[in-house]
């Protein structure tokens, strides 16, 4: 119908102003030197050839840390999704609600609460002292950051995996068992391959916030080491170098888009419009 087509127009204008224009501005800034209007690639050159490779180190550190947290989320989360999907529906819906409930509490509060648990006089160290052990330095290191990431992003891994798992017809598994497959074989040959689209969505949903967060490293890592998110935040709010900050943001965006593109190649069933949730 012709008349309904025009209903989208106000939002197209909105998207042009608040989605496209902002990114174009960012791109323009990244292609100019600080305080000049001339076009240049200096920001990107500085990025890749910085003294003692500082920027490259930040990128690789962030990628490695986000990669670890994604793998941990997958290792912890996959069995959760699998076990929950095998429960009777009343129980499984109870566990699913229990799994999302924490995500409804403010993200910063949950992270802050770990500061209380891990701190020098925190509860965990109190237990250690109580049992005659030495208190440990649990807060302000990479382990604490990793813990915070797994804690915050684990539900993002469990949910997509569970939702594809719940759709697998039980008859598939029964057929496999009837034909002589062991329980493990049935899992490995049927369940696992069918859950790959869920795993891919989960990886994207965990890796992306993990690689770009600046809150978790700052609160749980004490801001001692810089990751991409902290670097961008620092460039914009502290050192005021918007051009370099834009260049780093553009690079991070490109990195994530490339990662998503590659991951989507593995996911033959990927249909953007209907498969988001």
């Amino acid at each position, binding site marked *: 119908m012709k008349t309904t087509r025009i*209903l989208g127009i106000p*939002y197209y204008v909105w998207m042009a102003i*608040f989605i496209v224009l902002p990114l174009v501005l960012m791109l323009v800034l990244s292609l100019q030197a600080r305080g000049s209007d001339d076009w240049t690639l200096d920001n990107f050159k500085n990025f890749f050839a910085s003294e003692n490779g500082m920027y490259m180190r930040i990128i690789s550190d962030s990628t490695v840390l986000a990669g670890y947290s994604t793998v941990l989320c997958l290792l912890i989360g996959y069995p959760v999704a699998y076990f929950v999907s095998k429960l009777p529906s009343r129980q499984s819906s109870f566990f699913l609600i229990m799994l999302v409930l924490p995500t409804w509490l403010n993200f*910063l509060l949950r992270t802050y609460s770990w500061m*209380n648990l891990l701190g020098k006089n925190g509860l965990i160290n109190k237990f250690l002292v109580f049992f005659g052990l030495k208190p440990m330095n649990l807060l302000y290191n990479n382990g604490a950051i990793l813990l915070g990431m797994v804690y915050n992003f684990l539900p993002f891994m469990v949910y997509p995996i569970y939702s594809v798992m719940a759709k697998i017809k039980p008859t598939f598994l029964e057929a496999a068992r009837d034909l002589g497959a062991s329980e493990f074989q049935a899992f490995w040959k049927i369940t696992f391959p069918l859950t790959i689209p869920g795993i891919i969505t989960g990886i994207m949903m965990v890796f992306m916030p993990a690689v770009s967060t600046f809150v978790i490293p700052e609160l749980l890592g004490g801001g001692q080491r810089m990751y991409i*998110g902290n670097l961008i935040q620092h460039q914009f709010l502290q050192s005021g170098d918007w051009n370099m*900050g834009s260049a780093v*943001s553009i690079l991070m965006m490109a990195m994530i888009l490339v990662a998503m593109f590659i991951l989507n190649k593995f996911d033959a069933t990927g249909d953007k419009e209907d498969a988001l949730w």
Partner: protein
Amino acid sequence: MVKKLQNLYIYLVLVFLYAPILVLAVYSFNASKSNRVWGGFSLKWYVALFSDREIMSALYYTLMCAIAATVVSTIIGTISAIGMHALNDFPRIKAFALNINYLPVINPDIVTGISLMLVFSFASARMGFVTMLISHITFCVPYVVLSVLPKLNQMDKHLIEAAMDLGASPMFALRKIVLPEIYSGIVTGALLAFTLSIDDFVISFFNTGSGVSNLSIFIYSAARRGISPEVNALSTLMVLCVSILLVVANLRSGKEIASK
């Protein structure tokens, strides 16, 4: 035996997820100001909470922004989804619009937040509630569109034609046929928008100013100097509210199933 181990595993993960929340809740009843020493049971932080100017203002802005962003983005999102759906004869334009719409979903929050900040600062807008609200609407609408569109795709397109053949005006057909069909998608979109807005930190952080802060920003700025126990009390109340809402929603859907 295997079943028991599996359940044990799920419970262990739940303990991991709930331990920090439980600690917050327990310390909200602590008479001592420290989050590390137990000084006996007290409700004083709950009383103090409601007289704390800073927290109350943050709570006010958080709720106002979430409600306004949800209402506006649900309306814009639904209308635009209907408009986009009608573009089926122009698949290229539709795909292009959808890809742009998808950008805030796949972009990291920090990129969305900072790029919006750039626009506001180039337009020399005064950073405050309005800029925060605009940025919230910008990242909420895409989720509404993405929850409504699949419902429109599932809808039988002949239904509208039938209604109009029988003399319904387009507006009447929209109200009586389309809206009821896509209702569940609209509700999902609105709920998503509300939860995203109320929990947002990064995008708000870069797009607010002049004394306007939401709860996330307040907690962020307070976390490093140590948060006062009023915040523990607030978070306990928030968990309680969410749990009650979920229980009520579950009871209702349980009743619906039972009555069928």
